[in-house]
């Protein structure tokens, strides 16, 4: 049984030496897959493209250091660190068979600096080729095998999907709250405002709100304040009472916020132009009764009170 060493990966996590190979951290490439063995047997060439995370080797001092990324990367994703003392060509590495017995782990001097280089040196010392490297298992500090490779992959995929899905749902919900609120607390608290090209005194003379807002009575709270940059006055209104509003009430047109928006817009037009612009009745040709047509009509009918105001 090789001595147990502690390895530190790029995220600072410690793992111990794999009890199968004794040369590298648990969870790192170890055993070639059946497919890779077949491809190499039939075609005599390895499948390239195996990738590994950078690893640091804690050389006994247990000083966990985050190691820099490999200095150079080959097409296999490996960093080549040639040792002058033990020159081994890549050809000889690839052509050598798998060593039948795992040697003792020997951490070369630069293993603490460059993780891939450390691995390559270990590979050379064991006469292993890069294609032999496959993930094996996760081993905890007590040397117990806690997760198989397949389970690890499955967990990773499912976890990513779950996290992504959760994030998407949260994003949609937060945007929905921001853009088209349906919670009762939001309908109560949010001020809706229009900026009017008039002075605050002209907008609410003597504190009296414009007629469309005054018609809503005590259902709304109204205030006015100067707009910055000489842009006039900000006329603001919000509901004074809680209303249980949701999608259905919005679809049904009973959402009280529709009235607030429409009253604000009408107030603005009256104050700026002196009249509320009408569009109907207007000339039009034959309007067939279609679903699309009804949808467009409904959208237009609600357009005075809806929106992001």
């Amino acid at each position, binding site marked *: 049984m090789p001595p147990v060493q502690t390895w530190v990966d790029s995220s600072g996590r410690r793992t111990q030496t794999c009890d199968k190979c004794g040369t590298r951290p648990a969870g790192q490439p170890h055993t070639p897959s059946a497919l890779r063995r077949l491809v190499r047997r039939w075609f005599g060439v390895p499948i390239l493209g195996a990738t590994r995370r950078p690893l640091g080797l804690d050389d006994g001092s247990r000083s966990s250091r985050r190691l820099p990324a490999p200095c150079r990367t080959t097409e296999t994703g490996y960093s080549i660190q040639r040792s002058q003392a033990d020159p081994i060509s890549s050809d000889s590495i690839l052509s050598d068979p798998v060593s039948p017995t795992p040697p003792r782990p020997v951490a070369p001097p630069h293993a603490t600096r460059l993780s891939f280089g450390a691995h390559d040196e270990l590979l050379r010392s064991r006469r292993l080729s890069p294609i032999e490297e496959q993930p094996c298992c996760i081993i905890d500090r007590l040397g117990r095998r806690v997760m198989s490779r397949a389970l690890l992959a499955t967990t990773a995929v499912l976890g990513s999907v779950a996290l992504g899905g959760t994030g998407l749902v949260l994003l949609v919900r937060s945007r929905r709250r921001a853009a088209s609120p349906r919670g009762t607390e939001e309908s109560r608290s949010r001020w809706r405002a229009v900026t009017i090209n008039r002075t605050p005194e002209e907008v609410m003379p003597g504190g009296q709100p414009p007629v469309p807002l005054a018609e809503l009575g005590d259902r709304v709270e109204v205030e006015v304040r100067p707009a910055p940059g000489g842009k006039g006055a900000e006329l603001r209104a919000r509901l004074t009472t809680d209303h249980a509003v949701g999608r259905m009430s919005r679809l049904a047109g009973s959402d009280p916020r529709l009235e607030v928006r429409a009253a604000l817009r009408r107030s603005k037009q009256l104050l700026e132009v002196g009249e*509320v612009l009408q*569009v109907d009745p*207007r000339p039009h040709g034959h309007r067939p009764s279609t679903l699309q047509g009804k949808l*467009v009509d409904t959208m237009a009918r609600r357009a*005075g009170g809806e929106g992001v105001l």
Partner: protein
Amino acid sequence: MKALCWTGVNKTSVETVEDPAILNDRDAIVKVTLSSTCGSDLHLLGGYIPGMRAGDVLGHEFMGEIVEVGAAIRKHRVGDRVVVCSFISCGRCWYCRQELYSLCDNGNPNPALTEALWGSSSSACFAYSQLLGGFAGSHAEYIRVPYADEGAFPIPDGVSDLSALFASDAAPTGWMGADLSGITPGDTVAVWGAGGVGQMAARAAMLLGAEQVIVVDRLPERLAQVQSQIGADTVDYSSDSVIAELKERTGGRGPDVCIEAVGMEAHAMGAQFWYDQIKQQLRLHTDRPTALREAIYACRKGGSLFALGVYGGVVDKFPLGAIVNKGLTFRGAQQHGHRYIPMILDRIAAGDIATEHLATHVMPLADGPQGYAMFKNKQDGCVRAVFRPAS
């Protein structure tokens, strides 16, 4: 009265509709003398702009005679010959006071639709779907003009109806693109699209001091008009490489200012066109920005771009990297016509701007469907089909 109505995707018909009425004190009723088709109508016709309702009366570029005024109208009287801006603006809100008339707060009675689509509501435009107000259009014998004191302009004596017609939309739109893109004397300006708006933008660029103006299109009759009527250079993108040609003519720099006057149904040669076309038909994006991409690519470092073409929603493969890394200034707008129309009418009267040649096909309103088909398919050298509702 008779009116040309949109009845479905690529379908129009002339129908009998109710006469318009004064609904607000600041309204006027105009008897339409001439009403032009516009390239942006084709987006409505093709169903690319949401909010069209079967039966909507088309047309937003028109001139005519005032036959009725509301109680609050001060500048006009019955009998005035006027050209009317295609955008409806109150003239009183902060945006109108800044001369940003197409951003008017009060002109659009359906603000929620454009708020939902763009974040804020823009002003209304005649006959441009429920999105932009839902007002009836000008391909009719009569039209109601809201805020007529602001949007209707008297036509000077000596300016023909046909010349004044294009002061309604094409000429001020083109002028605005040249004006707001920041042309300075000595600049090279490239304009994509040799339709009415593109030609007017090219002429405006020349009048604003551009040393070299190059218009890009593929239709020979339009390129010929650019050379003969506008006096600008041309590039035929169906036979030349636009980028190489523009580089060659600008000493390798590229145009200082690029104006895109094509819009959401851009045509192009090659795979890029089909990519955009397929995605648009599948509604995976709403607009085909082919010409806009090329303009961004062609523009010199630190140059300026202006999108005059109509875009409604979202586009794919937008070269933001080129804008950022070349330090470009990119603007766009619907026309702030009220700002430019009086000056344009004066320039037409003075002979600085020629517009009549755009009206290649003038016809009675009863031939409206054929006129639109001809205009859409670029048949018979049609640059603009113009209708005479009174005839």
